[in-house]
């Protein structure tokens, strides 16, 4: 059985294999913001900053690298295994560098009945990749229910929803992304941020408290 991303069940051990050459080293800003994030939580509960820090690293490197897991482990007094155990539990932490735009397609029945499955297959065809892979600026993934079912079929670009689009229109949008254009505003009227800034926001570094 393959999992939802189409990955074969066998996974190599976490480690050097997950340091892709392209990842830039973590910056001073990362460390400063990581420290600030730890301060949000009560004394002795710095571990709560783990998921936020993983987002922060992903914001800089485009994925969660083995190096990032090492650095974060040192910052929080955790072993690398403990960090890896958490990072691999959650689907939003990526193992490979993502493109500027992560396109997520829902294929649950509410969306499938409105064309979600076809959209996924057309996109794989157009981009020439399978879900879980990246082609240029665009990474493609199949996801579980995005909980916007009234807008079926739903897909998102960096978690900004696009709803009720025809399969052709949706494919057209993604093709334009691949051509280097920025996406149009999503279903709520706002333009998605790029993958880096989106993850930076996910870390909570920009939240009021």
């Amino acid at each position: 059985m393959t999992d939802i991303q189409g990955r074969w069940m066998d996974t190599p051990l976490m480690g050097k294999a997950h340091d892709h050459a392209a990842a830039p080293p973590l910056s001073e800003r990362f460390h400063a913001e990581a420290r600030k994030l730890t301060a949000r939580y009560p004394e002795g509960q710095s571990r709560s900053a783990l998921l936020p820090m993983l987002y922060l690293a992903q914001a800089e490197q485009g994925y969660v690298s083995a190096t990032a897991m090492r650095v974060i482990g040192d910052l929080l007094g955790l072993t690398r295994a403990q960090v890896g155990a958490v990072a691999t539990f959650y689907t939003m932490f990526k193992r490979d560098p993502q493109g500027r735009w992560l396109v997520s397609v829902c294929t649950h029945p509410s969306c499938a009945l409105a064309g979600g499955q076809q959209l996924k297959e057309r996109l794989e065809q157009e981009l020439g990749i399978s879900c879980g892979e990246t082609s240029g600026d665009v990474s493609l993934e199949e996801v579980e229910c995005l909980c916007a079912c009234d807008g079926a079929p739903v897909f998102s670009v960096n978690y900004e929803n696009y709803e009720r689009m025809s399969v052709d229109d949706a494919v057209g949008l993604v093709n334009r992304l691949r051509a280097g254009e920025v996406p149009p505003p999503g279903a709520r009227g706002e333009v998605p941020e790029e993958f880096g800034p989106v993850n930076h926001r996910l870390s909570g570094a920009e939240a009021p408290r």
Partner: protein
Amino acid sequence: MTVEQAPVNLTIDGEDVSVPAGTLIIRAAEKIGKYIPRFCDHPLLDPLGACRQCLVEVEGQRKPLTACTTPVAEGMVVKTEFTSELARDGQEGVLEFLLINHPLDCPMCDKGGECPLQDQALAYGPGSSRYIDPKRRFTKPVPISPLVKLDRERCVLCARCTRFSDQIAGDPFIELFERSALEQVAIFEDEPYESIFSGNVIQICPVGALTSSTFRFRARPFDMASADTTCNRCASGCRITVQTRRGELVRVLAKDDREVNDEWICDKGRFAHPYAQSPERVVEPLVRKNGEFVAVSWAEAVQVVADRITAAREAGKGSAVIAGQQLVDEDAYALSRFARTVLGTNDVDARRVLGGEDEDAVLAALPKTITAANQDIDTAKLIVTIGVDLHEESPIVFLRVRKAGRKGVPVREISARRSAGNVQGARWTACRPGEEATLLAGVARALEARGNSGLDPSTRAAMQGVDPTSEMQELAAALQGVHGSVVILVGERLAAVPGALGLAWNITKAVDGTFGWIPRKAGARGAAWAGLHPALLPGGRSVESTDDRAAFGEVWGIDPPSRRGRDARAIFRTAPELGVLLLAGADPATDFADRQQAARGLDDAPFVVALDMFLTESARRADVVLPAAAAYERNGTVLNWEGRPRPVKAAVPPAGLAQADYEILAQIANAAGGEFPQTLEALRKEIKALLVQPAAARAVTVGQLARPSADGLVLATHRPLLDDGTMMKGADALAQTAAQVVVEINPADARGLTSGEPVVVHAPLGEVRAPVLVTDAVARGVVFVPAHAGFAGRAGEAVTVEKAGG
């Protein structure tokens, strides 16, 4: 008995059972001989309830409950699979689930024959599986350390290994990754599972997912013979089961002993057994003829030695004994008796750290009264360690202290180098070697200032002139606050600091605590008890006491000599004047800080006899080498650090012509003309006769305190657990998990050095080249170098460090 402590009464399958409140159903069932199948449950790990195998029906509950997470309640009616369809169906269902992805590996899986999954599938599972789809596959096996191999396909995700590593050992290098059917035990590739306790997960894994790389494919459980004995690789005294296949030692397992080692042993105890069957063992008596060793018969060898002993006595030349610290108690006693009655000398020493009067007094006092036991660690409200790295030097005691730390008990470490062991909330007080006495004197002074009136006069005298620092004040406050429930554990290294041992002892007495002396080696406590010491007779008696000598004389037939003997250092210095120098399980040319002195002494001594298993650096210099049996090859008793006698039982016959030390000594004694106990029974009878009355309590006086160490850098050193000693021979996989030798220095002293670059440490007795590690786990003004073959150094010596190479 208060209401809260009243036992709870319930029924399990109609049978009445009464257990303390808070007992889990699964434990209550075991009390009446009922086994409820389980995987994730383990009595020493926090309940998890993950595998769902232990489902039972509880009247009044609509769902079956897991017996391993549900405490009993008054009047509870529990039905296991014997009397409940629901429970039986539930258990069968879980087993069927576990088997759908489990590979059919039994024929080639090491666990086969001792596998809880096999056993429970047979007893509680369905007869066959209805699953016809593909199983999840993983690359297998994957080495997660040189010692442990992981097979993710076999894993049932009981999380025993990850919980053990996290909760018990404090080494969470192994964790559950991913989720859903992809969930797997894994490590981070460049952070292998290097924990000194890693072998325990092999033993508690209920399937063949974690297997030993050294035991792989070597034997089926039903092919092996077992002997329950005691490990002798440190002073923890763990119970072990040694298993052999056709006479070959193949495996060591931990044996359950809640009072000492729970169900754990360290990797050294588990994997370092190959030395006993190493081809390098000396298996025949060797006598030097024309400069070369020649194998001879026992009769000849014994006669040669006996003749030399007789000749020495007639020529009025003294003889001496340097004993090792791995001797079994009966051997140690026999050696002590041999020295006094056959060699006629008190020049006997087993110590590696030579101290002052206070060391003598503490060693004498050990056999009785205020010594600590494991249960004291369990119930203490404060635990203090001084001059010992428990994680490195007595790992299972470390686990017990860690257990206390997890419950919130404060643990204070006073040492030159912070232990690598992970104890929750532990506080480290950095203390340069040599300054422990001053620190303790300051604590004593602060204690008195806080109203403690229990300090003895010698301590009070010694502490004058010491101004307690705020750290000493704080320690004193902590101690005073837990009057009556503090455990103070000191390392044998503390003896090198005059006054330190004595102060530690007296402070412990003053706060009504218990005192533990933690030696590095398994036979050290036994050696002290047996009187392998220039001033002590067995049982803490004194050579300088007329009454004590007379009591021994009555049983031995000869009074021991009355003058205090020479210590090991003096023995080597005066080696040329000796008649016979007897080494019993000792390798001073390797172990002593001043190796050159020891080697010279051995070369200069006219006649050296070595009882040993190997041709060590020292044995090579002997005139006669007599092959000694290894601990796995004979019976006996060993005192662990608590003074608890632990039985040693033979698992294999002695290699070649080797004999136990006591047998060898008896034969020499007889050949030299005299009565000597021949058997273990005879030795034990003598011991009993001599030591029925405990020795009179002696005060431990503190003499002159150590002068504070010089400015600049001083050396801190101790032998790592996984060292390069002879008893690590053949344990190649284990040796790969040993830490590389590095020179550790505090950032304040590093002066431009960066971690990883090669440096040279110059010490008075030698130098060492190694990579440096700049770390704040080492006190300021201290350089830490682990004791190893290429390096000789004494703690507290002044050293210098510089970059290596041009």
